[in-house]
């Protein structure tokens, strides 16, 4: 996938761009950036869901040269919090992923049901196919949304903050699943991420956006640096290496990584020392 001079404009305001981005087949790229940086806008433009100027190619073909249905067969999109109508079962929901392959007024055939059954099995949802999606847990629901996108048999999967509603266990479960699928079926993944440590852990490449511009792009070690995060997030963090992997750790003004550290009088500010030594 290849994008150049990509811009998204709303009225007089430029929401995004110009952005240039190249993503190889089978890569996993995470898009990070502070709130309002244009992460979701970028994702939607790359999938052809937002009007854009410039050029986006999917597998060598310009996006606007593809019909909607052709595009939908190649690109799966999972929204940050998918809208799922009450009463809809997992099987009904995942079957919607076959829509791009159906002619108008046609019904799903045996192959469509086979794809759905296979996808449900791959994602560990086979036993839940008759359950209502709204009654599932957060992790199960996110897997159902992934299954719906994967039933499109896409080559590119766009995920908008796939883990934002999940606890850390389910975050790992969903991201591990995406990674396994990426390896198994050669899926290309572009995901927006809020959690920087997870963004470093999964995926090969990070794009950092701020105010609609790409401000850093490259492997996690090059993008996730203290100065970058300070400049664009206004964050005070340490980027540490733990077991050979990056971790982004918020720091307090006194320099201790977290309040769990042994309480030591800080030499830097009198206020802090006073606060810490006050009896409870």
């Amino acid at each position, binding site marked *: 996938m290849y994008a150049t001079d990509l811009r998204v404009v709303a009225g007089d305001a430029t929401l995004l761009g110009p952005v240039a981005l190249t993503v190889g087949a089978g890569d996993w790229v995470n898009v990070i950036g502070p709130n309002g940086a244009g992460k979701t806008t970028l994702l939607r433009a790359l999938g052809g869901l937002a009007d854009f100027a410039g050029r986006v190619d999917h597998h060598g073909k310009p996006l606007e040269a593809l019909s909607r*249905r052709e595009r939908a067969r190649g690109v799966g999109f999972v929204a940050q919090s998918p809208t799922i109508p009450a009463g*809809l079962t997992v099987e009904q929901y995942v079957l919607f992923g076959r829509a791009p392959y*159906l002619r108008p*007024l046609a*019904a799903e055939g045996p192959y469509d049901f086979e794809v759905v059954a296979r996808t449900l099995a791959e994602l560990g949802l086979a036993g839940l196919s008759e359950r209502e999606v709204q009654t599932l847990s957060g992790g199960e629901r996110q897997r159902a949304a992934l299954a719906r996108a994967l039933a499109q048999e896409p080559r590119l999967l766009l995920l908008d903050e796939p883990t934002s509603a999940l606890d850390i266990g389910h975050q790992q479960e969903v991201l591990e699943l995406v990674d396994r699928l990426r390896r198994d079926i050669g899926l290309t993944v572009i995901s927006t991420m809020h959690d920087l440590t997870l963004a470093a852990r999964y995926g090969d490449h990070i794009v950092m956006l701020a105010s609609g511009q790409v401000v850093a792009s490259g492997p996690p070690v090059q993008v996730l640096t203290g100065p970058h995060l300070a400049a664009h997030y206004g964050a005070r963090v340490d980027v540490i290496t733990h077991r050979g992997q990056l971790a982004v750790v918020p720091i307090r003004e006194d320099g201790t990584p977290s309040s769990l550290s042994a309480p030591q009088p800080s030499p830097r500010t009198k206020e802090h020392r006073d606060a810490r030594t006050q009896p409870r």
Partner: protein
Amino acid sequence: MASTRHPTRPPASWLAAAAAAALAVLAAAVAIGPISLPFSDVAAVLVDRLPLVSVDHGVAPVTAAIITEVRLPRVILAGLVGSVLATAGTAFQATFRNPLADPYLLGAAGGAGLGVTVALTETGGSLGTANPGVTMAAFAGALLAVALAYALGSSADGRSGASLILAGVAVAALFAALQTLLLQRDDEAVRDVYAWLLGRLNVAGWDEVRLLAPSAAVAVGAMVGAARRLDLLALGDDEAESLGVNAARLRLGVIGAATLGTAAAVAVSGLIGFVGIIVPHAIRLRAGPSYRRLLPLAAILGVPFLCGADLLARTLLAPAEIPIGVVTAVVGAPFFLALLRANRVGRA
């Protein structure tokens, strides 16, 4: 493996049962009235009316005329109106992802009301089957109101449909105000206008059926044909687009079809409320949220619903008639409130 029953299409047995219910109520509605007629006579006369079939039914010509010229057009008109309103309500609920949307959401009722009021006050016309001008004014008014709401509402924010609903509310309020102004200057027309507003199947003849049938067929066909895409639209515009649906075009097409059908229905029958809410939600309780099931079932079951309501309207206080809009509202309002209560949970 795939289940034997398709998860989102209506089973053939459901469609057959719905059609049988529709036919049974249609037959009962033709047979029951001030003069009760045996089913066998009704059947014989109707079969005799079919092309190339001749039955020596032995029914008196006057009785046969009651069947074919008085009751049959009224029953068929009620069925068509019921089908159109139920389908349009279902389609609007899908289009706006709002379970409480009904066919008059974008101002069709206010537009038709103003059209009728203009026709009756400014031209000195009067109500009745012999006045196609009033019917056409209602039709034009309804189309105009929805077109205005669409033009105003879709430019601001074409994606969510929320501004479209607000524009519909504004247009309806404007048209209602203009209608009040006109009626204040001409109080003789007030009665006629209100008689029309409360529903006027009682003056129905074949002319009304001929006027409504083509619009109804096109509108219901287009909405049922869009059912699968409306299922995708229920997931949100972005996800629908990612599945290959042009959300803006689908919304415009469905609103256009629903408005064509609703405007024609309102023009021949007056304002009949709640059909577009009751029928889809009653079906939803049994058939689930898939519009591929809801839309065809609503198109069929709207027929017996409104035929039955009309039957009640003309028999409960016979020989007097209750306006059908009152019957559907008296049944519909409590249902609507129960629905609201049930909807407290899990809806935005």
